[in-house]
């Protein structure tokens, strides 16, 4: 009659592996939450809930895209000048990094589904470091020079501005070089760049920074989720029967990828 689990199916909720004799891995001992009929419902409900959350995330970024579209229609010169100030090569590198990390994330889930534990953890590590690479490239080759005029000495773009380097302002033993007149590309009233052709450049930089910083903060959150998944995977929490958290983390990570798939051409390619 009842479709709810009976006593014989074990006490629902959490890990039930109290008995020392139970040598099964943690994922095999996992019991679904007591408010679910079965683990299938739990998995589906978790995913459905997370898709609802993702829809709110999409709407959050829709605000940025809306600002982009309207200001672009109003100030096309500022948008052309702005996208010219961004290096498409840096954007392409970051796009490839994120796409590959999306693949490794999906592959990690496949490995958990087929109980390839070690490879699954390795994929999570690769995904994590791909996210870190994205952030470092973003910060080191884009935010830092554009905001302040300080370049890493190994930045290829630096070679174009050698005439403007101020050696006295170099930091960290020459690792960071200062280029006079390059920085100050900042949003709103922080704007401090003397050579803007369009007077609306502060608006472009405001849209650029809001879009990419909100996106980068999502990368950070995704990396934290991946780190947690890796940590728990080491203890055997995830396997063919139970990997909901990894699946959810994967969905979040792919959303980060999706947003970048649109941000990249809008900011870097369309002129």
């Amino acid at each position: 009659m009842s479709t709810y689990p009976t006593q014989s199916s074990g006490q629902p909720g959490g890990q039930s592996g109290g008995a020392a004799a139970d040598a099964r891995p943690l994922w095999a001992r996992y019991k679904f939450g007591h408010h679910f009929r079965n683990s299938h419902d739990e998995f589906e409900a978790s995913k459905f809930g997370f898709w609802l959350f993702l829809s709110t995330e999409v709407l959050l970024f829709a605000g940025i895209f809306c600002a982009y579209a309207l200001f672009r229609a109003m100030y096309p010169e500022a948008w052309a000048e702005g996208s010219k100030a961004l290096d498409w090569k840096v954007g392409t590198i970051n796009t490839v990094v994120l796409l590959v990390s999306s693949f490794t994330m999906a592959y990690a889930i496949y490995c958990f589904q087929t109980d390839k534990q070690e490879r699954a953890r390795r994929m999570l590590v690769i995904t994590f470091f791909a996210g870190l690479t994205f952030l470092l490239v973003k910060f080191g080759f884009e935010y830092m020079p554009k905001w302040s005029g300080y370049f890493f000495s190994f930045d290829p773009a630096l070679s174009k501005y050698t005439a403007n380097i101020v050696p006295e302002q170099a930091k960290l033993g020459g690792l960071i070089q200062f280029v006079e007149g390059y920085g100050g590309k900042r949003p709103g009233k922080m704007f401090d760049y003397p050579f803007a052709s369009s007077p609306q450049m502060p608006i472009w930089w405001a849209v650029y920074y809001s879009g990419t910083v909100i996106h980068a903060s999502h990368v950070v959150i995704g990396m934290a989720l991946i780190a947690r998944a890796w940590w728990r995977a080491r203890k055997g929490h995830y396997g063919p029967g139970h990997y909901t958290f990894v699946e959810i983390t994967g969905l979040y990570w792919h959303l980060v990828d999706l947003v970048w798939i649109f941000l990249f051409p809008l900011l870097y390619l369309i002129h």
Partner: protein
Amino acid sequence: MSASVASHDTHGSHGSGDHGHSHGHVIVPPITLGTILGLLLFFTLLTVGVAQLEVWIMDYFNIVLPGWINIVGAMIIATVKCVLVMAFFMQLRYDNPINTIVMLFTILCVALFLVFTSLDLLTRDRVYADKGKQVIPGGSGDGTNSFATIAKKKYEDKWGAEKFAAIKSVIKHDSHGHGHGGHEASNTASRSRTVTGLTGALSTSVGAHGHDAKHDGKHDGHDHAKPEAKPESKPEAKPAGAH
């Protein structure tokens, strides 16, 4: 009854063989994932290549491609990539369709958001004429004491006119290989008719920033050698006939 439930309940105790189908946990094989990654990388190169190709075509044939080619091309490719990621990496293709419906509904909401916000874009000056004008950030909003002007003046005072021009000549002709990989003229704003203010029929409300579109001829990478004395409020206005 409870036996049939148990077959669902003992989720974890299956062998590694049959969990793929019995619980809706679809296993997407690595070969599929790899193919999708390959397609995504291909489309990334394509979208970058198309943008570069447009710049090259415009430079080489000295023609103006309409801006929508650029936008529509990039957005179509981005949408294809987006669908690939959602269908395979996010497994919408194999999932309960309700998740797809959620996403489609969200996209509808985004479209509504965009449409309703842009509805009055061309008619903002119907009631108050100044709503149709450009807003320039900073100062009184009309260009005096704007953030851009203040920054320019600050560094002119700091460096002096000569050093200002010297620094500018290094910074501003950086477009070779930077930005779009093209040179100064490689954007539609400088090559084509420059639109100021609201696009569309509102050319009357452009105000002080309008200028004759006919003067926006082609100019090329040579012009960084010339002293640049143009006022900053006329962004891309350069004399025609560099060629």
